[in-house]
C-alpha cells in the first residue's frame, strides 16, 4: 500500500540553524499538509498546499517557516532560524481529494 515517507526520522539542530524536513507524499495525491505535535500535546495544523501554492496556514506558520514542492515528488518544510520551542514531532500528510489524509511517520525535531 502506498505511504507517505518522511526523512529524517529524527533531527537534532542547534538553535538558530536552518532545518529542512522532507516528505514524499503519495504519488497521485494533490493536497499536502504539515502538522506539528509538541510532546504530550495535540496535533496542530501548520499549512496546507494545493496546486503549487499555500492554500491555508495557521498563526504558528510565521515568516520563519516555508514550504516548497521543488519537483514532482518531494514536499519540504523549512524552518529558517530554529528556536527551542520548535522542538516537536512534525508530520507530513497528503490527500487525494482533500478529505481523508494519510500521514507519514513523522520527523522528531530537537533544537538544542
Amino acid at each position, binding site marked *: 500500500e502506498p505511504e507517505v515517507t518522511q526523512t529524517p526520522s529524527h533531527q537534532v539542530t542547534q538553535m538558530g540553524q536552518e532545518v529542512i524536513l522532507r516528505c514524499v507524499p503519495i504519488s497521485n495525491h494533490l493536497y499536502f499538509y504539515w502538522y506539528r505535535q509538541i510532546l504530550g500535546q495535540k*496535533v496542530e495544523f501548520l499549512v496546507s498546499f494545493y496546486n503549487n501554492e499555500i492554500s491555508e496556514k495557521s498563526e504558528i506558520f510565521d515568516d520563519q517557516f516555508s514550504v516548497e514542492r521543488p519537483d514532482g515528488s518531494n514536499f519540504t518544510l523549512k524552518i529558517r532560524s530554529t528556536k527551542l520551542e520548535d522542538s516537536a514531532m512534525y508530520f507530513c500528510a497528503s490527500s487525494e481529494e482533500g478529505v481523508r489524509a494519510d500521514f507519514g511517520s513523522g520527523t522528531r525535531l530537537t533544537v538544542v
Partner: protein
Amino acid sequence: AQTVTQSQPEMSVQEAETVTLSCTYDTSENNYYLFWYKQPPSRQMILVIRQEAYKQQNATENRFSVNFQKAAKSFSLKISDSQLGDTAMYFCAFTFYNQGGKLIFGQGTELSVKP
C-alpha cells in the same frame, strides 16, 4: 472558531472488553467530516474511522464503530473486543467539506488495554 474536545485524558480497559471514547465538537457549518486517528507509541498517525456529517448511518470498521449525534455535536468511538495492540493515543478530528482538508484535532485520549 471550530473546536474539538476530548474530555477523557486517559482510559483503560481489560482485554476483550468494550470501551467508548468521547468527543464533542463545535461548528456552525453543516457539511463536514469527522475522524478518529490512532497514535501508537511509534507516534505514527493511523486513520481508524471516518464519518460524513450528511450520513445518518454510523460508520463501522471491524471492531471500531462510532456513535454520531449531529444535533448534540457528539462523535464517540466504540472499540469492541479490545486487544493489546489497541493501546495508543486516540485523537478525534474534524474537517470541513470541500475546504482543502485541514484537520482540527482534539487533545487526545490515552487508552491502555490491560491483559
